[in-house]
């Protein structure tokens, strides 16, 4: 018997928390002498008011879905993968190699290959910390942090010294050939008379992300492996009793996590930039942590949280475009959202529970 109806827990509480975060954000905007109503208005119309806005919102959301899922899967095995950033970078490298050095007849095949490559590279980058954690007990939090730095240095080397086209001053690979350019929403949904998602980077990999959400959900809650991952995450001694190998689960979970993080590259590298640039991940790996935590490590939660952050990113971009509000305001708003929905949720839950108990008592 629960203390309150499920809908209250999954809908009401996050909603109230969000409202609180919004109120505080408004105060901050006031404090820096801007008009909150205008700002919010600008953000909402800019991010959700047009197919163009959606195009960007969904593009960002796609990134966060991948990294969020990555963190979430690891969480289920009680592993804290802070390395999404580095794994995504390597995924990008994989995509770039596949797209640049193999002539593909058609984007669809290229996408499949790119998915494979990015997952492979991402997983490979997660493999070493995973192995060290499993075999040597080296704390995965440290090793993954370190591997983020190492990945950055490695990528820098590849781009500056190896993959950069002669004469280009830009530390980035050449553009990928036309054939591997992914269909954007614009090309997918525009009709002759009206063009939608004009110029927006949202592309087919959004659906890859959706697919990933389903796959992860099925994996975690419907398969033996998922069952074992969760069991291990809850109790290592229990796992040993049931004949579930901690080493195996640790490594497998991290490989999956790394692969998911790597997949992000199909969106930002293959879908948007159509080349590999330095810092292409832009902290999405870290946003992924927040997304996974807010989404309670559940694919659907991750999906929603990712959309929310996508909205904040795009809304923030619009603010930066049309007002003189510093871009950091968005960071603050993000922080408040994370804080209230993620960390202070009990502040809302506790009184609500009392309320519902009272109601039930009344009913009896």
């Amino acid at each position, binding site marked *: 018997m629960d203390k309150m109806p499920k809908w209250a827990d999954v809908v009401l509480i996050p909603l109230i928390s969000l409202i609180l975060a919004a109120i505080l954000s408004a105060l901050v905007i006031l404090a820096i002498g801007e008009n909150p109503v205008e700002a919010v208005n600008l953000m909402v119309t800019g991010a959700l008011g047009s197919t163009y806005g959606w195009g960007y919102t969904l593009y960002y959301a796609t990134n966060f879905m991948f990294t969020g899922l990555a963190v979430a899967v690891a969480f289920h095995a009680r592993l804290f993968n802070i390395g999404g950033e580095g794994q995504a970078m390597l995924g990008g490298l994989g995509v770039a190699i596949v797209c640049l050095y193999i002539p593909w007849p058609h984007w669809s095949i290229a996408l499949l290959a790119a998915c494979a490559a990015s997952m492979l590279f991402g997983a490979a980058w997660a493999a070493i910390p995973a192995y060290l954690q499993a075999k040597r007990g080296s704390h995965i939090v440290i090793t993954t942090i370190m591997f983020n730095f190492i990945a950055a240095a490695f990528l820098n080397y590849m781009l500056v010294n190896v993959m950069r086209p002669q004469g280009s001053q830009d530390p980035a690979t050449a553009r990928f050939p036309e054939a591997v350019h992914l269909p954007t929403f614009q090309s997918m949904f525009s009709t002759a008379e009206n063009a939608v998602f004009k110029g927006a980077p949202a592309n087919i990999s959004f659906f890859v992300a959706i697919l990933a959400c389903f796959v992860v959900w099925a994996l975690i809650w419907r398969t033996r492996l998922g069952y074992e991952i969760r*069991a291990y995450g809850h109790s290592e001694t229990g796992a040993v009793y049931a004949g579930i190998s901690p080493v195996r689960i640790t490594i497998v979970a991290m490989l999956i996590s790394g692969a998911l993080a790597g997949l992000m590259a199909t969106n930002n590298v293959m879908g948007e930039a159509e080349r590999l640039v330095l810092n292409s991940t832009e902290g999405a790996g870290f946003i992924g942590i927040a997304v996974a935590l807010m989404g309670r490590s559940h694919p659907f939660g991750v999906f929603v949280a990712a959309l929310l952050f996508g909205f904040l990113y795009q809304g923030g971009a619009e603010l930066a475009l049309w007002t003189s509000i510093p871009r950091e305001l968005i960071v603050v708003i993000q922080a408040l959202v994370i804080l209230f929905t993620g960390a202070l949720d009990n502040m809302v839950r506790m009184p609500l529970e009392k309320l519902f108990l009272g109601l039930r008592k009344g009913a009896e």
Partner: protein
Amino acid sequence: MTVPAIELKGISKAFGPVQANKDISISVAPGTIHGIIGENGAGKSTLMSILYGFYKADKGEICINGTKTDIPDSQAAIAAGIGMVFQHFKLVENFTVLENIVLGAEDGGLLAPSLSKARKELKELEEEYELFVDPDKRIDEIGVGMQQRVEILKALYRQAEILILDEPTGVLTPAEADQLFRILDRLRAEGKTIIVITHKLREIIENTDTVSVMRRGQMTATVKTAETSPEELAELMVGRKVLLQVDKVSAKPGKPILEVENLRVFDQAGVERVKGIDLTVRAGEIVGIAGVAGNGQSELLEVLGGMRPGQGSIKLNGEPLALSGHGSDGQARRAQHIAHVPEDRQREGLIMDFHAWENVAFGYHRDPAYQRGLFMDNAALRADTERKIEKFDVRPPNGWLTAKSFSGGNQQKIVVAREIERNPDLLLVGQPTRGVDIGAIEFIHKQIVALRDQGKAILLVSVELEEIFSLSDRIAVMFDGHIMGERLPHETDEKELGLLMAGVAEEAA
């Protein structure tokens, strides 16, 4: 008549929707031992925790020595001269005994003086009550029996006049239990007031002056121990007649199922826990392994259950089993029809945060019966769970509850149901009824015997001699990693076994 040392008036406590205590009142006379019995989840621990200020009561008041005292936190309880030994000890594992005793009762900001002072007083207490412990050992280095002494010493060090013990004997050997009650006697003689929660009627009858019975959060009766009987108490507690003795036909042992030869087990630290034992369990018999906790029984079970590597040879139905590396894990064992009821249901047997129906597959989750194509067949699983809950009368009968929201008794029923229902060739059972109420004990024992009567082999490890006696067809006693000797239940008695458990060799016995 004298003012009661403790008087609880109309105590009520709800944990969210769960009404743990409903309007409970008792009064305990000073200088007496008061027993409390009741099913798992009846509310005993809660009630006592309230008296100790661990939980806050929703309603009701507490009087100590006749004066109304409100106890918002444990500090107040300690000030009021109350000490409590919790069911699950509240000790800091990686602190020394001394540090644990001093914690919270230091005098002065610096540790050194407090520690030396405590060391001195500890000596005196030890002398006085024969509660010997090594003050410099770390808690995780000493056995549960010792840990309990530390808990008691903690209370005495704080000059407790009222001592509460929640299921103190659950983890003790008979010898240890007897000694505990001798100590309690002495305390009572000094005029201290004592409350004991236990599931063992014998202890109630032998040691308490008065006894209260709790059921479903309410106090159903309080009687003078002298004027009652085990049967009556059992009935008051469960609400129906219960047989306190398992009645079973004598065993008809068949061919050997399990043959252990010269088994050695080393723990992570490389210490040899099992020092080359030979053991055979036949079809249709229950072999009970008696022994003080920590003499290698646990390790024996764990090797057989595939939880840790060992050396030597183990045959099942004549087939040798891998003892390390590939094919020696729990999955392999299950495939070989070995089922295992582990000693610690909460850390091993169950995933406390899984639904009951998920736990019903725990360990057998790779069983084809639970698969549909790539996926697990949760529908089938739930159906299966319904059956087991029904058959083993798990309460509340709701497969969607998480394991941790069942009481220990019912948690244990879930584990036993899962393992016995596999209908294995060999069943390993560790401490099947620790902390479980008699209603459940009776039931679980019946199931084990029933399995035996189907001609299965059962290896039982228990620190409860009573349990060993009432279930086993053959008893082996383990001490310091060796098997000291084997006995038939009707040819031996607690005294002899007690000696063997204490390591006194056969000849001497």
